[in-house]
């Protein structure tokens, strides 16, 4: 008889709830949790089984032999590997103090464990990948509402109009969210899509605007202008909950729709039609503030403008708008106990400067790339040891050569991951985590209109000598004299310890894999949102006091983006529905669907360069070159070329992914410290590359 195991998918960072059927220790079936997703799952989720069966992943702890990146490893026991790491950490602590250690993790619902670990060592230096992802969006929300980007959820299903600026929501594929979008469209809702190219999401849109790369901010300003002029905003809401509206009105004056349309290279009629639609649809209009917006020089301001548009709609805490995610506390239930809250906060300043040098940034995870400066310069103090847990900086941060130079100042580099990350390949020690079907994870809280606790049970035993992270961190902490902060020996003890204040027990998860903390969705009283906006003024601040104190504008005058020099293109990147960046490229079944990326190039630009569909093209930065097939299309702006991120991997033991396709981040030379001073995000689409037809296209073949 097959037994049901409740888990959460680990193929991408969405972590969809899943139900796994196991028989005789074998996985028979994986589907989306029927209670939450009606069984639905994406290609990656099903391909988890291929990951489980794949042997091209680290099979036991490895300690480097030979130079970094040489790819020579000594397979060792867990005891040996953990002793080795502990000794190195102790040396670093003795020589430079605990603060010389840093840890970066993948973020998400289980950050408590790695965060607790680095804090238990006595270092404040906890970080994650977000400065190459959503930091601009997060800080844009924070400086406007006083709450970060996770401070709102979007009730897409019930909205009348969803507006997406480059948010390729259907390809990024959070299953529950995709279902909401399709439900909304089925009900006759509108979808406006703005991008430099047409995408999987754009083909479903009712209004599509292909803009010149880097002009999103201009378009958002034009929208603000149009909406204010049409008086299509919620005056009462603005009166009650915001400050700085007059400044916004005078600031916006020069940016009318005609100007915006011209700047973005779109027909003004489209923009006017959009304003008219929004007037009809408000307040049930959601402007998605963006997800991965480490893109252009002004992405922070573009995202802030999108959030301002939401405020103008007055879409907060309404059906079909933005809602505050409800917590266990809102259901009268105590939250899960966390490890980190039991540990004395390290008093040291952060090495990335966040919280003291950069006071306007969120201290939580800080900004990863700034630690490289500390490594390279020893300022404000040296960083000598780095642990990356399920985070591959070489895959997500630009300019890998510059990263390696900084890392060479470290005495210890550790990678904890389920697969060979590119960073892992360069590290000193790889501690292999069991893939998600082979491990449990701590219980997580999922906030929302109906908050819940959810867990991941172990479906099958690990195929190799790998361990779950709760055990890795615990054992390492024991060896470092910090075991007291990890008060468990088994996962059951850990779960029970987490659950104790809540009144629930592990058995409560057996039926559905989660515990719902309320039957009915909870909504706050929209007329009494006082205290919900955590800005200095407790209002939504069009003009942010925090930014003012940092000497930064809140409403920044628009500057037109640089045009590519003759013969060059702006390199932009995105994702496909069948891959989760670099994590899945080597998965046998996903590789089969999408083995290598291509370069999208506009038909006219391609014609000038003599490039035809399917030709190999060289994509050239200063010292680096990638070669891939061209996809020649009308549906990309002539200034841009586009590729799917995550390819061009260089780990020889990943035989399928090895050198397949091209890596955008390796071409992004010089961008590692190109940070948006207001948003903290990197400007990864500020790279211009030369494209030429490759000499590798065969003219004739000499076989013998």
């Amino acid at each position, binding site marked *: 008889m097959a037994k049901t195991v409740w888990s959460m998918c680990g193929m991408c960072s969405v972590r969809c709830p899943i139900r796994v059927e196991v028989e005789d220790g074998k996985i028979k079936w994986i589907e989306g949790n029927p209670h939450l997703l009606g069984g639905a799952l994406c290609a990656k*989720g099903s391909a988890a089984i291929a990951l489980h069966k794949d042997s091209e992943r680290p099979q036991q702890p490895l300690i480097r032999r030979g130079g970094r990146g040489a790819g020579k490893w000594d397979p060792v026991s867990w005891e040996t590997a953990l002793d080795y790491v502990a000794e190195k950490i102790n040396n670093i602590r003795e020589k430079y103090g605990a603060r010389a250690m840093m840890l970066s993790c993948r973020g998400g619902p289980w950050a408590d464990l790695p965060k607790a670990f680095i804090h238990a060592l006595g270092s404040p230096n906890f970080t994650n990948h977000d400065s190459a992802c959503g930091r601009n969006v997060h800080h844009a929300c924070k400086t406007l509402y006083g709450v970060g980007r996770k401070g709102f959820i979007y009730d897409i299903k019930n909205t009348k109009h969803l507006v997406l600026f480059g948010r390729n929501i259907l390809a990024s594929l959070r299953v529950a969210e*995709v*279902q909401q979008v399709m439900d909304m469209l089925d009900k006759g809702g509108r979808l406006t899509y703005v991008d430099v190219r047409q995408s999987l999401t*754009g083909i479903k849109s009712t209004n599509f605007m292909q803009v010149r790369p880097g002009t999103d901010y201009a378009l958002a300003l034009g929208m603000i202008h149009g909406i204010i002029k049409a008086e299509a905003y919620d005056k009462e809401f603005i009166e009650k909950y915001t400050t700085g509206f007059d400044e916004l009105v005078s600031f916006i004056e020069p940016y009318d729709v005609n100007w915006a349309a011209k700047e973005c290279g779109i027909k003004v009629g489209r923009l006017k039609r959009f304003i008219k639609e929004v007037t009809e649809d408000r307040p049930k209009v959601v402007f998605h503030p963006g997800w991965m917006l480490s893109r252009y020089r002004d992405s922070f301001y573009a995202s802030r403008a999108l959030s301002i548009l939401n405020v103008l709609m007055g879409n907060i805490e309404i059906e079909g708008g933005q809602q505050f995610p409800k917590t266990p506390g809102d259901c009268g239930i105590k939250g899960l106990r966390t490890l980190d809250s039991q540990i004395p906060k390290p008093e040291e300043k952060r090495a990335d400067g966040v919280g003291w040098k950069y006071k306007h940034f969120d201290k939580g995870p800080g900004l990863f790339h700034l630690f490289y400066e500390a490594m390279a310069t020893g300022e404000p103090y040296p960083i000598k040891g780095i642990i990356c847990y399920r985070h591959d900086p070489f895959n997500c941060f630009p300019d890998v050569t510059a990263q390696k130079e900084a890392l060479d100042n470290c005495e210890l580099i550790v990678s904890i991951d389920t697969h060979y990350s590119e960073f892992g390949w360069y590290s000193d020690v790889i501690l292999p985590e069991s893939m998600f079907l082979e491990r449990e994870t701590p219980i997580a809280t999922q906030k929302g209109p109906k908050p819940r606790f959810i867990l991941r049970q172990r479906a099958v035993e690990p195929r190799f000598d790998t361990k779950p992270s709760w055990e890795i961190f615990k054992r390492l902490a024991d060896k470092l004299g910090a075991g007291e902060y990890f008060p468990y020996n088994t996962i059951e003890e850990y779960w029970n310890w987490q659950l104790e204040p809540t009144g629930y027990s592990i058995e409560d998860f057996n039926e559905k894999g989660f515990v719902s903390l309320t039957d009915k969705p909870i909504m706050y009283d929209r007329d009494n949102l006082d205290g919900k906006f955590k800005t200095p003024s407790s209002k939504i601040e069009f003009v942010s006091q925090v930014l003012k104190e940092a000497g930064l504008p809140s409403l920044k005058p628009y500057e037109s983006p640089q045009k590519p020099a003759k013969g060059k293109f702006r390199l932009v990147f995105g994702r496909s529905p069948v891959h989760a960046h670099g994590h899945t490229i080597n998965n046998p079944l996903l590789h089969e669907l999408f083995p290598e990326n291509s370069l999208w190039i506009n038909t006219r630009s391609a014609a000038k360069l003599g490039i035809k569909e399917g030709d190999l093209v060289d994509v050239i930065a200063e010292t680096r070159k990638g070669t891939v097939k061209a996809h020649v299309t009308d549906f990309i702006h002539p200034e841009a070329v586009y590729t799917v991120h995550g390819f061009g991997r260089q780990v020889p033991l990943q035989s399928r992914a090895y050198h397949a396709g091209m890596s955008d981040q390796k071409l992004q030379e010089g961008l590692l410290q190109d940070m948006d001073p207001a948003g903290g995000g990197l400007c990864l689409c500020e790279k211009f590359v030369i494209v030429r037809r490759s000499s590798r296209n065969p003219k004739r073949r000499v076989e013998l």
Partner: protein
Amino acid sequence: MNKYMLYLNSKRCIGCHGCEVHCKTNKELPVGPFLCEISHDPLTAVKGVPKTEFHFRSCYHCEDPYCVPICPTGAMIKREDGIVYIDTDACIGCMACAGACPWHIPQFNPATGKAVKCDYCMDRVDKGLKPACVSKCTTHALKFVTLQEV
């Protein structure tokens, strides 16, 4: 008379290729054969929006299948309810069925050395479940329809 049909609501389909992998993993297929496929037409602008439609294709389970009579061992069988399936024990992997099928639907499974094709997941259907591709379709765009005789 065929009893079943797979229907794709292409308005709802997002072209995520989930169904292809759901099918492959359910049938434990290696790299190589696909029993269903999602495809789309080239993009064309409709009212200024570049659009396309997705198509889903598996086996047509023909009323009068070409693949059945050609099979030298009688491994290709059409059930009462219309499902055309392969009796794997009897299949010798000669692939005559693929040659006879106008769309080359039956595929060679390198892991077993035999032919394999869509059987509407009849083991699941006989248990009252839906086919794998339908059960797990990301957007529930794909439907398994039981045809009514009128």
